[in-house]
């Protein structure tokens, strides 16, 4: 008995088929890792560059003998950039706007996406064309009019029915981002509707039909059956929405003039450096130019590193449910 297994094993080992399979999987493994390492370099390069440059002593930044590792670590640039960017106030406002708008976007866009994916109603195709229109019309086209709209906001003409025609100025308030998000028209709202619709489209109908036959209302079916299956989409949209709000430049520049959000500040960096009370020496500007983007990406980066585990785990858990 033992003998036969051994001979079998030896036979297996010498079998050219098995040998070939082993070589193939080895080659695949090496290629895969070469690929991963190469791309990781590509993606890490800017971050490493920002970190090493911003930690350098401003006086020695143009020393050609320094390539990656700073000879003298210094937090001067980071500390001064925090003052130049008005970092704490600006970051606080940006976090507030991004988080609330993201939550509103999740709620409204998932409902609308489900409506488009599962129900037949008159005017559906026309409405979906309008969704596509909001996606493809460059935001820069309608931003000047949008800003006017928010400056004299009247809820699409509802307030003008009241005598005296009162309007509200929403500029410089988070409402400019939050209100549209609540009605699925926020930053890239159309795209999120489209993403949700595509995902719900792919879910087999049988589960919902069973629930509906058992007397579950459409809304309850959505909450109890669809949302648990679609957790990966919700996580994906949360990430996208937060990051896009964080990095938004055009609307943020138009809507906020008093306390600036972070990304518009970054865009104004040249002017901020020139007019700042902090004494920036010309030769040191490179370290500030690196410190500012690093400070701006730091909050989402930290958020991602801490939630990363939950992020990947929850994706896998739902994979089993599906």
């Amino acid at each position, binding site marked *: 008995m033992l003998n036969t297994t051994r001979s079998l094993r030896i036979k297996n080992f010498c079998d050219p088929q098995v040998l070939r399979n082993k070589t193939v999987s080895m080659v695949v493994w090496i290629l*895969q890792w070469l690929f*991963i*390492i190469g*791309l*990781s*370099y*590509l*993606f890490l390069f*800017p971050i490493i560059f920002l970190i090493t440059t911003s930690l350098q002593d401003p006086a020695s930044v143009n020393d050609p003998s320094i390539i990656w590792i700073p000879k003298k670590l210094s937090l001067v640039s980071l500390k001064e950039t925090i003052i130049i960017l008005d970092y704490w106030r600006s970051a606080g406002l940006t976090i507030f706007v991004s988080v609330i708008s993201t939550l509103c976007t999740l709620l409204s866009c998932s*409902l609308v996406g489900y*409506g*488009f994916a*599962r*129900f*037949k*109603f*008159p005017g*559906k195709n026309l*409405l979906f064309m*309008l969704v596509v*229109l*909001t*996606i*493809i*019309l*460059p935001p*820069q*086209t309608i931003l000047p009019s949008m800003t*006017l*709209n928010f400056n004299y906001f009247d*809820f699409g003409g509802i307030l003008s029915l009241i005598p005296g025609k009162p309007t509200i100025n929403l500029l410089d308030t988070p409402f400019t981002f939050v209100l549209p998000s*609540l*009605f*699925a*028209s926020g930053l890239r709202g159309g*795209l999120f*509707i*489209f993403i949700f619709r*595509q*995902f719900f489209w792919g879910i087999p109908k049988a589960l919902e039909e069973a629930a509906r036959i058992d007397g579950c209302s*459409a*809304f309850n079916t959505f909450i109890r059956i669809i949302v648990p299956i679609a957790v*990966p989409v919700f996580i*994906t949209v949360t*990430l996208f929405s937060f990051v*896009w709000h964080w*990095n938004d*430049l055009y609307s943020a520049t138009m809507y906020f003039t008093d306390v600036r959000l972070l990304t518009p500040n*970054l865009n104004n*960096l040249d002017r901020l450096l020139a007019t700042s009370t902090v004494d920036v020496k010309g030769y040191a500007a490179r370290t500030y*130019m690196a410190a500012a*983007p690093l400070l*701006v*990406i730091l909050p*989402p*980066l930290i958020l991602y590193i801490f939630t990363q*585990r939950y992020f*990947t785990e929850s994706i896998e858990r*739902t994979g089993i449910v*599906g």
Partner: protein
Amino acid sequence: MKKASKISLSTRDSWTGLFFVMPFIIGFLIFFFRPMLQSLKFVFSDVTVELSGYHTKFAGLKNLNYIFKENVDYTTDLISGVTELFWKVPIIVISALFFAIILNQKFRGRIVVRAIFFLPVIISSGIILTLIQGDAAAGSVMSGNVAAGGQTIQSDTLKQVLINSGLSSDTISGIMIVVNNLFNLMWKTGIQMTIFLAGIQGIPVSLYEASSIEGATAWESFWKITIPMLSPMILLNIIYTIIDNFTDSQNAVMLQVINNSQAVKYGWASAMSWVYSLVIGATILIVLLIFRKMNALASDQY
């Protein structure tokens, strides 16, 4: 009796559908409709900005006439913007799918690799890359040279190799465009990769188990399970990539639109971006039609 209940069911269904999409209808009317009409009006008007506000005067097709006949760059930029899509979209979507498949596998150090591959999503802002590329030392690595496989290859060397290998000059210049854009192209795959990853995670594991019991190889189950199950995501990613390319502020047409709005030439800017949007719309419509046709063909097979 039976007929009556069927009708009431479908009307109830349509009311529920309307209830679900209601947020969008309200949002569109309150936030989008008027600004949209206004910018459409600008296309056909002379816009003058004064202290008291702006005034519009109907001007017919004057703005459209300007952008097509008097402005030398607009038409060329528009055409090159569309032709770029033919190589950019396939490269980005296929690489994104490839990355997603690699990241979905179980291997040691996967969590770290995933965290790194998500960086382009987190730093998706154009300004940050522009600022970094503005720095002389970093910029040379990211544009002129190719960063690949952990080392930089001088792109001139590559060009020389290609010329020596006897390829036609058109092919070489095509390859060089792709190679010189490699950094930017790979950085643009982040969103698509995440969408694919979420899509792959949503495919029931039982499908793969069943097919491997039936004797399907990994290669076969990739083409027969993964690709068909991902087809809504492939469509989504193609459309996202098209839009992302069109609305990128580094895009030549977009730069013209932005410059004209900053110079308070609202008439020209609106005309340019509406024509531009129509072109994107047409491109997307063609993609949607191709997909519908392919889906119909695929379902005929079974």
